[in-house]
């Protein structure tokens, strides 16, 4: 799981980009703490061919990326 809480954009997307690039995992979990990062990670994930579901995680946001 990528814990990107406390990081503002573009760091969460950079972290996800690093995890996805070349490795192409089937699923990936990312936790972020602000709505802007939810939107940015979601957009990046969708453009990379993932489906995204967002849920609550200790008052923050957990994104599950699935191929």
């Amino acid at each position: 799981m990528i814990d990107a809480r406390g990081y503002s954009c573009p760091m969460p997307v950079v972290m996800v980009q690093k995890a996805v690039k070349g490795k192409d995992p089937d699923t990936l979990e990312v936790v972020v703490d602000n709505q802007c990062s939810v939107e940015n990670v979601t957009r990046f994930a969708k453009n990379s061919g993932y489906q995204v579901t967002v849920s609550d995680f200790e008052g923050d946001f957990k994104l599950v990326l699935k191929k």
Partner: protein
Amino acid sequence: MEKESFFKRYGLLIATGIVVGAAAVLLTAQGNPANMGFCIACFLRDIAGALNFQRAGFDAEVGTGIVQYLRPEIMGLVLGAALMAAVKKEFRPKGGSAPMARFLIAVFVMIGALVFLGCPLRMVIRIGGGDLNAVVGLVGFVIGILIGIAFLKRGFSLQRAYKQPLAEGLVFPGAMVALVILLAAAPAFIIFSKSGPGSQRAPWLLALVVALVVGALAQRSRLCMVGGIRDAVLFRDFRLVSAFIAIIVTVMVGNLLVGNGLTFSFTDQPVAHNEALWNLLGMVLVGWGSVLLGGCPLRQLILAGEGNTDSAITVTGFVVGAAVAHNFSLASSATGIGAGPVALAVACGFVVLAVISVMNLAKVEG
């Protein structure tokens, strides 16, 4: 792959760009300096002047400097963002991500902006006004962003922020409310320029209301001048750039509509100089520093409105940088660059950004 509709993807950002561009034209028509309907750097500099942190161009006869005024556009942007964030439950106080590094970066971003004469937003507005010097600035801005991105790709990060108490997040928006009160009350110890750009101002209530709307929209759309070019390069994501272009087009159309005309030239452009090297280098500092900060000066105001205390400290750094720039004659004017040690200051800026960039090349987790 799920495809978003064009409207859903770009609609809000383009709408925000149009509103920002229109607001800039409107506020200029109503009294703000030319091609300066909205400029975060200039307006923070004016606020520094109103608080007597600088009194550039002081004229004993007139009794004031030329860039001193409590620009309500700044307070409106922050408070508009704060209100929108509160409504959308996005007001989440946080901070603690390298505040001193951010402060220092901000000081030099502001010095760079005042060597060029404008923040990235004013750069775009100047381009829309036909000022070709701003195109030179844009080249510098892109170079600066590319340098910043090179460090981002190598793992640059100012480390994470942490949740802060509500009271901490409210300090900066609270200070903005205090500035609005000072503006309305206009006590004698707050200085309003009687000549120069600081004396050219749209009616304050109009400026405040327009800025509240722009702040709220910018909060929703995450409008950011640096983010536009950064995301285009880094993620091939052109959403934010669309707002950038919308502002330029709107300002061009607006200038023609209100009869300002549109002359493309390097000379005789309002509140601008044509020393290309310094226009370029100033904006390299702004672009690079803003990538390290995670957003342009406008975006820092919006984030500060959302309770981000790192951005609040960044804005404080801008104000201090403006005071430094004017007190040491580093800021440019329409006649050219400042009489002070401009080259030394810009060189120091590059050294400081380089050191901070290299020292924070921690490995990104994950």
